[in-house]
């Protein structure tokens, strides 16, 4: 049982956290033909746009209501209307997803009311799907924005089936948390399809931000789950929710459509994937395909090979709750100690983490604690680069943003294969660090304690 505390500082230094409106916008990016729209000043969008562009290395569709000072004070109806009409006229989207920001929430704009009025006044957009989510910047974090947005999409766009008889047991809804990459979604899709099931991902970033080359240039998202497919999710046999953040959306789905759900708080590591395989066997009535039986063996082998390097490592992780749970869990299962766990927002998984204390804080906290506790492996997003170079410890990048390495969108964590590759990557990083920085010298043992993995040894 971990205790969860919140950093007491007035000033956040080197933020780990990102804002919830852009978490919401990313969720909308997993929808086909979508244009995410932040209701705020144009910087709110521009910062998010740059962040995602640098992470995914793709063109990112995202618009702004471009609130001026005056509009902010008077209320943003005109801006929302103009933005919706401009987006409709220029980009012909299949859906517009609106997230509020700190600016417009401080004023208290009634965007749901605006949308109603806009539809009444403009026949062209009367039936255009427009989903609004309240996501003030001064509350919660990225993961919460994603969670709220997916829940809202379920509540407003999924249709309740007319009769239970129309339910199709081969259809599976998948509600992935924002800690999964497009690569993870593709892996999951393959696994589920190999059991003869047909998954619908909401959101489906693998369709839109996996780097594929689209058939035509479009200013909206170039793929993802379609509006029609979302509306039919109520006919599925099961919903699989991945990450504790997706519980609300899964519950909303069940409440609206009666589709039962199964939570997978983790999908990285041996036990988590055993549970997935058993579940898929149960609901499909098919045995686990040979391919996965072999992959399970490979993961076990990787765990055996990797535990030599990962075992005993003193780990510092900075990540949003569900990602922290996945990677902290995996590495402690290989014998690492999770000595420093810093996260961004509250979550039920935090107190179940295999550590004594979880801090809702920033990368300065991570750095100070990692130093104090002599950590020798750090995992966080790219913003940890300065911290890691000061601490001089191996640094494995995970999470958004990953702007100083390629392939962030394809980093694999789920499935037996994802765990296997992750163990290899991290072990290799540690081996390289050992060779580069920790080769024994005639003086290594002179003080009687032996070479340390941490920075102090050189």
């Amino acid at each position, binding site marked *: 049982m971990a205790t969860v505390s919140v950093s007491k500082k*007035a000033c956040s230094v080197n933020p780990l956290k990102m804002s919830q409106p852009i978490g919401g916008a990313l969720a909308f990016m997993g929808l086909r033909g979508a244009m995410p729209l932040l209701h705020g000043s144009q910087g709110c969008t521009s910062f998010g746009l740059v962040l995602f562009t640098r992470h995914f290395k793709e063109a990112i569709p995202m618009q702004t209501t*471009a609130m001026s000072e005056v509009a902010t004070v008077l209320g943003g109806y005109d801006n929302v209307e103009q933005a919706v009409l401009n987006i409709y006229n220029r980009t012909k989207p299949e859906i517009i997803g609106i997230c509020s920001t700190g600016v417009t929430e*401080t004023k208290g704009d009634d965007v749901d009311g605006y949308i109603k009025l806009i539809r009444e006044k403009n026949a062209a957009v009367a039936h255009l799907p427009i989903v609004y989510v309240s996501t003030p910047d001064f509350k919660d974090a990225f993961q919460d924005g994603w969670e709220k947005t997916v829940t809202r999409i379920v509540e407003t766009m999924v249709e309740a089936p007319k009769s239970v008889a129309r339910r199709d047991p081969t259809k599976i809804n998948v509600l992935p948390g924002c800690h999964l990459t497009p690569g993870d979604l593709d892996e999951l899709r393959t696994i589920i399809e190999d059991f003869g099931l047909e998954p619908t991902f909401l959101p489906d970033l693998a369709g839109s931000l996996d780097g594929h080359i689209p058939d035509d240039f479009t200013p909206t998202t170039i793929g993802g789950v379609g509006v029609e497919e979302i509306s039919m999710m109520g006919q599925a046999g099961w919903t699989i929710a991945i990450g504790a953040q997706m519980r609300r959306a899964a519950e909303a789905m069940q409440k609206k459509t009666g589709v039962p759900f199964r939570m997978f708080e983790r999908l990285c590591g041996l036990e988590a994937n055993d549970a997935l395989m058993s579940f898929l066997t149960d609901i499909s009535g098919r045995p686990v395909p040979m391919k996965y039986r072999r992959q399970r063996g490979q993961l076990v082998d990787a765990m055996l090979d990797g535990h030599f390097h990962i075992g005993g490592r003193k780990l510092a992780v900075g990540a949003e709750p569900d990602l922290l749970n996945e990677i902290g869990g995996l590495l402690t299962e290989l014998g690492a100690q999770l000595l420093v766990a810093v996260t961004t927002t509250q979550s039920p998984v935090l107190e179940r983490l295999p550590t004594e204390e979880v801090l809702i804080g920033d990368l300065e906290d991570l750095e100070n604690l990692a130093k104090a506790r002599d950590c020798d492996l750090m995992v966080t997003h790219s913003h940890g680069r300065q911290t890691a170079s000061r601490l001089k410890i191996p640094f494995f990048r995970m999470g958004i943003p990953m702007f100083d390495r390629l392939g962030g969108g394809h980093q694999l964590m789920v499935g037996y294969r994802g765990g296997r590759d992750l163990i290899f990557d991290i072990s290799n990083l540690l081996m390289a660090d050992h060779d580069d920085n920790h080769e024994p010298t005639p003086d290594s043992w002179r003080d009687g304690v032996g070479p340390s993995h941490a920075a102090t040894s050189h």
Partner: protein
Amino acid sequence: MSSLSATIQDVFNEPGCGKNANKSEAERKKGCTKQLQPGGAAGGCAFDGAKIALQPLTDVAHLVHGPIACEGNSWDNRGAKSSGSNLWRTGFTTDINETDVVFGGEKRLFKSIREIIEKYDPPAIFVYQTCVPAMIGDDIDAVCKAAREKFNKPVIPINSPGFVGPKNLGNKLAGEALLQHVIGTEEPEYTTPYDLNIIGEYNLSGELWQVKPLLDELGIRIMACISGDGKYKEVASSHRAKAAMMVCSKAMINVARKMEERYGIPFFEGSFYGIEDSSDSLREIARMLIERGAPAELMDRTEALIAREEAKAWAAIAKYKPRFEGKKVLLITGGVKSWSVVAALQEAGLELVGTSVKKSTKEDKERIKELMGQDAHMIEDMTPREMYKMLKDARADIMLSGGRSQFIALKASMPWLDINQERHHAYMGYVGMVKLVEEIDKALYNPVWAQVRKPAPWEKAGENWQSRAMAQAEAEAAALAADPVKAEEARRAKKICNCKSVELGVIEDAILANNLSTVEGVREKTNASGGCGACAVRIEEILEQMVSASHAIAAE
């Protein structure tokens, strides 16, 4: 907020801005903050602009007072480089929460300043205002003043919340903050007749260091660079410089002009992009310093250095010229780099097929025209499809642009080079020009293009998406060519003003019907250029064409 709006008005009145000088009193009041277009806007806010302008000051703690979005989504993402402190890359933010929004964030801000001083002890703290605290009435000027008195340390308010306007307004508001609170507040340890300020240079990718060795060789001291690789004390004592060079077009013209007004420091607008521009700038620096009292022999040494560096650079570039023969470049960029890069590329023997002038001022555009001759093909607001077609038609062999448009080129399997702020290479001065040429060569002749353009084995020739897009475009063009009525319709249907969705035909009709001769007149009748205003230059061109056409008719 009244003092902020007064500052904004003051910035709008900038007499050093040529664009401003041509405006009427009423227009000037409206300012250069064009109405941003909901659903059609791109680019950063005033806060972003202020931070871009000041963050390269390396030893300052930059504290953002606002919710997590303003700093958390964007920190440490600039390509500026530091020769010393890395404090500027540390993200500081008050990360205000709901309670702060209800009860005010001033206390948290004050405590944050205290924490930073206790932990990091920087020579100064810059406090950036953002929209939410501005709305709830947090008075950062008062908090900064109190902190300044309490901690006896410069704590500078940067009043440029995002919603007051776009990025370039933020650049100027940042300049105002320096003028008001920093410049002239300290004295330099010593001065020399060779003290130069460089204003509006951010040292992206360390490009300033491509030029600094030359200045060092000439004995010219960069007293302060505002703000690339700058230090607080240097900026605070920069009022003792003898001359100034303003680098980034209009971003900080207010700083250069007001320093001339207040401290008698003459400035010129120059560029270190391109060989000739570099030489001109060095000459101008020498001339100004001599005028302010440096020995006249500085010019001889400068000329000798220019001759040596030019010869070296030309020799290095010469070997690429045959490889670039017949190669065409599509340049998509805004602001300062449009004209300076054009000159640079032409020096390397490349041909330009167009250059976007979206963000450039009219003056910038005039310079491009001057440089490229009358045939300059200005490409504004190209759609991705048009851009692809242009590349694909082999009318362009390589595209040079800012980071965000790169994917259009890359997805079209076309060579691409980053020339905006997130780029990894430095292209300033003589060595930078050689580097740019080298990078273009590397991109053009990379064997990867041949591979990535190959169709997949299951794709029949002419059935991939690229061919379909081309075929569609060609079919449309053929249909128009065969039908003059349709062609005229298509010509008239070309959207001139994207913000207000006004077509060419509507504008032409309005001009004819009302005998219009000004952009303002067109705006009144058609609403065109009533949005972001970027299309004003195009309306001017339409007016020019129609006037000359009607003269031709009258002459017959």
